[in-house]
């Protein structure tokens, strides 16, 4: 089946005074219609830059898409001009940003910001716009939507503002919704409401979702397929159940073991020592090797993404068929701290 979106060998660089930051390096993935894809990683791993490039939102200069294609409906987003991008954004592909406090315009009412989503893409009279806006707010679970339309962002709580952001993103009934850390700024009880809402949108409207997150728990509950990113590269890609039960990359393993779990007792967290590498001069060889407890001589040469199991790839020599100790199944348990 033809995927809805396919990203092929995407690389994004930022030119800075210190040098060229290689923020995204050779990232490829596909998104099927109705699928929920998670992209996981820590600050600076390139997950948000990847998401921004899907909408042509990389600020240039200093940023530039150095290579690669992003195919949506047979069209390459990388090659689109500004007019074509404006038609795409908020229409077929839309985005929810991380910080609901700063993503809304403080001097415009909720109604006028929400209405702009419609008027930017089609000719509608004021009354229809108001009716549709109220309908959207109701869809995202905001009580008394007509009254809310006349209010300013500061009159709403954080959870409400994030709902308004989601409503704006849904205005034109997009085929892909990109959510960049949509719940990071919110409390857990509000986070639960938002995740619930996204699940509902996916199952009722069939919207494909790309969820960017650093929270392995949120991803586990929402996504079907997960990409783990480290130092600008995809280091592991797998269906969600596979990734959590049989992680193949040592970084994924480290991440899973470094978080305390509500349903388990750990006397000591297995931290990953050291820091992520500098992306101005990423290390030759495997980017994770300096922090990896399984590092070996072979890691001086950069490993490719290896399909260890069908549908499950890992950028690690340990997943290579010639590796003497196949990782599959074994070390995940062995490495669990006592």
């Amino acid at each position, binding site marked *: 089946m033809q995927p809805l979106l396919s990203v092929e060998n995407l690389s994004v660089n930022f030119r800075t005074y210190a040098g060229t930051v290689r923020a995204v390096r050779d990232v490829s993935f596909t998104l099927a219609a109705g699928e929920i894809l998670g992209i996981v990683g820590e600050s600076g791993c390139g997950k948000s830059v990847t998401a921004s490039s899907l909408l042509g939102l990389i600020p240039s200069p200093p940023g530039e898409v150095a290579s690669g294609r992003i195919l949506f409906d047979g069209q390459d987003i990388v090659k689109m001009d500004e007019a074509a991008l404006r038609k795409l954004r908020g229409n077929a592909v839309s985005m929810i940003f991380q910080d609901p406090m700063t993503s809304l315009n403080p001097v415009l009412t909720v109604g006028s910001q929400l209405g702009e989503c419609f008027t930017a893409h089609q000719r509608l009279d004021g009354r229809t716009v108001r009716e549709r806006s109220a309908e959207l707010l109701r869809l995202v679970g905001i009580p008394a939507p007509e009254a809310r339309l006349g209010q300013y962002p500061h009159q709403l709580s954080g959870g409400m503002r994030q709902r308004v952001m989601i409503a704006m993103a849904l205005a034109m009934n997009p085929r892909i919704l990109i959510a960049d850390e949509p719940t990071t700024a919110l*409390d857990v009880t509000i986070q639960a409401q938002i995740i619930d809402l996204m699940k509902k949108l996916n199952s009722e409207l069939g919207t494909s979702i790309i969820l960017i997150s650093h929270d392995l728990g949120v991803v586990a509950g929402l996504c079907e397929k997960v990409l783990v990113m480290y130092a600008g590269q995809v280091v592991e890609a797998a269906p969600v159940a596979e990734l959590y039960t049989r992680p193949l990359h040592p970084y994924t393993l480290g991440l899973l073991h470094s978080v305390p779990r509500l349903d388990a007792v750990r006397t000591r967290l297995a931290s990953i020592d050291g820091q992520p590498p500098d992306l101005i001069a990423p290390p030759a060889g495997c980017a994770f090797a300096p922090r990896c407890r399984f590092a070996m001589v072979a890691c001086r040469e950069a490993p490719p993404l290896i399909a260890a199991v069908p549908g499950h790839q890992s950028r690690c020599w340990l997943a290579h068929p010639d590796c003497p100790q196949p990782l599959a199944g074994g070390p995940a348990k062995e490495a669990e701290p006592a």
Partner: protein
Amino acid sequence: MNQPLLEVRGLSKFFVTARSLLGAPRAAVKAVENVSFAVAAGETLGLVGETGCGKSTVARTIVGLYAPTAGQVLFRGEDVHAALAGSDAAAVRRRVQMIFQDPYASLNPRMTVGDIVGEPLDIHGLAAGGERRDRILHLLDQVGLSPEHASRFPHEFSGGQRQRVGIARALAAGPEFLACDEPISALDVSIQAQVVNLLQDLQEKFGLTYLFVAHDLSMIKHISRRVAVMYLGTLAEVAPVGELYARPLHPYTQALLSAIPIPDPAVEQGRRRIILGGDVPSPLNPPAGCKFHTRCPHAFDRCRSEAPALAAYGDHHVACHLITK
């Protein structure tokens, strides 16, 4: 428990937001209202709650950054705020220190790391000259930084390393009690584990007592011996960690626990979530009666009129009318 190291009695802290023409308070944010708990020597009490529930205000009032509106904070039986107002202020400050949330904002960008860590030594007159230098290097070593870091400035460090500097500074005066105000929430997952492990090692080595403020219930469970749950300025529940997570009695704690995502898709699929409706009410105008009644799935008439008191059932304390219903 014989005499606790730290005891908080009926603590309230209101922030006045509007005054009348003559300066009388007209409106106040009731950040903390009648909170009481005790922390035993050597234990970690986890203080958990959502944004704006008053947990940071409690921590800041304990260390004396805020003066309480009502109530007392007793350290080894001695009133902290009375001591801070008197001539013993320095003696109390030495023993009660704080680690701040934001490692980017809590270090002076114009001071070297060595001077930041050395400042408590200077203020309390603990060491000078070569001894001061040795103490600083030893402190940096304790938190996993190396001697050459002493001459660098905060901007040269990553978030995790800066938090280590903040911890070294808090340890410099030789405290017994540390109020940790969300010390890891600004850090990445793999770095959080490093800092939490460090805090646990230091606790063991120096016999420190922690008040650990966080909104992450999984981390609170990992680090605490007892846990206190706050909602809108009041305590909802206080219990030993195993008890609280196995048998949460307050409906808010139950909802909070069910909302935490677990990093395991198999577990996530089979979970039943209690999704609370609505938002936390404004502390400027909190609801009458039980403050949680506006979102509580079990609320009944009495909850709307009468605020439940924190009552003890063994060592499990809970403020909810359901228990006696």
